[in-house]
């Protein structure tokens, strides 16, 4: 399994053709206390860089973009009852949705963990 990152602070962990998408720890720090997450339903087609989810903190409503194109297979149902998982476990239990990748070559344009860490350190 390999994890990739976007400049918009989403991550996608890829296992074969299945990707799991979430936002990074840096992102949750910027958002503040998350109180609601709107995740895409199974079957929805998302595109790389397109709006896929909305996360609401006390202070703001923010778009989350899909790092890759594909078809959503599973939204994270746990976020409905416990949106604060985005704050407490953004890169594990606080994942947003799973999808089937449409084009694995899109991953080449994303950052690996070391590159993302360097990117955030420079912000």
């Amino acid at each position, binding site marked *: 399994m390999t994890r990739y990152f976007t400049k*918009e*602070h*989403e991550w996608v962990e890829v296992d074969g053709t299945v990707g799991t998408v979430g*936002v990074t720890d840096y*992102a949750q720090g*910027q*958002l*503040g*206390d998350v*109180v*609601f997450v*709107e995740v895409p339903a199974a079957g929805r087609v998302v595109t790389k860089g397109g709006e896929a989810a*909305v*996360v*609401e*903190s*006390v*202070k*703001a*409503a*923010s*778009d*989350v*973009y899909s790092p890759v194109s594909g078809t959503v297979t599973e939204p994270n149902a746990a976020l*409905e009852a416990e*949106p604060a998982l985005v704050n407490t476990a953004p890169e594990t239990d606080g994942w947003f949705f799973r999808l089937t990748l449409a084009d694995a070559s899109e991953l080449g344009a994303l950052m690996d963990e070391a590159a993302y860490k360097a990117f955030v350190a420079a912000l």
Partner: protein
Amino acid sequence: MTVGARSAIIAGWTLSRWLPVSDAEILLPLDALHLELGARMVPFAGYAMPIQYDGIIAEHQWTRTSAGLFDVSHMGQFELPSNCDRALEGLLPGDIVDLREGTLRYSLLLNAHGGILDDLMVTRRTNDLYLVVNGATKHADSALLRTAGLPLTYRDDLALLALQGPRAVDALEPLAPGVATLRFMRGGSFTLLGHPAWISRSGYTGEDGFEISVAAGHADTVARALLADPLVKPVGLGARDSLRLEAGLPLYGHDLTPAINPVEAGLAFAISKRRKTEGGFPGSDLVLHDLIQGAARRRVGLQIEGRQPVREGACVVDGGAVVGHVTSGGFGPALGRPIAMAYVLAALAADGTRVEIDVRGRLLDATVVPMPFFPKSYVRQGARP
């Protein structure tokens, strides 16, 4: 992810994203302290201001259970000669002539149509009238008053701090002996750590608490002394907004605008009894007409079904038709659910009325409910100590 791409509410201000503070913003007297405390600073009303320290929910709950310290030095503090009371009444619907010494009155600067130009506090002090106005409107207010012939002094040499919460009195009394004797909407001169201070029992959170006006040069000493008390933590603009929303208190520029009059806003209490009879304030014919006949629309509180917050600008819908707009909305941390204020047609303003809110094309169920959403805890005159 783009933070705030949909909406970002900083104490009610909508920004397209989290803007970094630039050189254009004026620094508060406590700027160095805010940075030392790890605040995230944002531009607000022309100032670099702290939006949060530990986090909005934690700061909100701390204020509801202990004491939160807010820096509101961006607000305008004006002084007027005492004999300007009659002239000031020409600009607002409150009774200022009969205002007793040491008493605060909430009032509204109105335009010729009765529209609200600002909301403010007027206090009669021994030697003057003391006004506190909103930061974003203070320069326009100052121009309005001066144009009306009122020789105001703008005290930008003063800082303004608010200490709010059920333990505020316990934290402030040792530093400013005597403040515990004040009651809600009363103020007086006190010695605070050896320096003169004007302190009133008032605020914008729905909690008991105080507002403290001190020389800007002493603000850092006062703030550090208060923060040295384990009862007190710093609270930013984010929680100030969620606290006032739970308390049902309107925010100027959002819930109150020049297109809204005091009756529509549910602020008829700010029209003093004598002024209801005499009129003589800007737009009084229109405002008093609405007071008797009822306004076409009203500010209401909305309880939202589910957990999704609704934000300023969202449409209120009834039977497929737009019947109003949300003017403030968010998550109420002490309530654990979303709440909002909206203006709706008068026919739909009764408590218990069911409406829908359009959030990004999805309709959420909502119910008109009385405000405040969270009960106020003021220490009123006549109440047992």
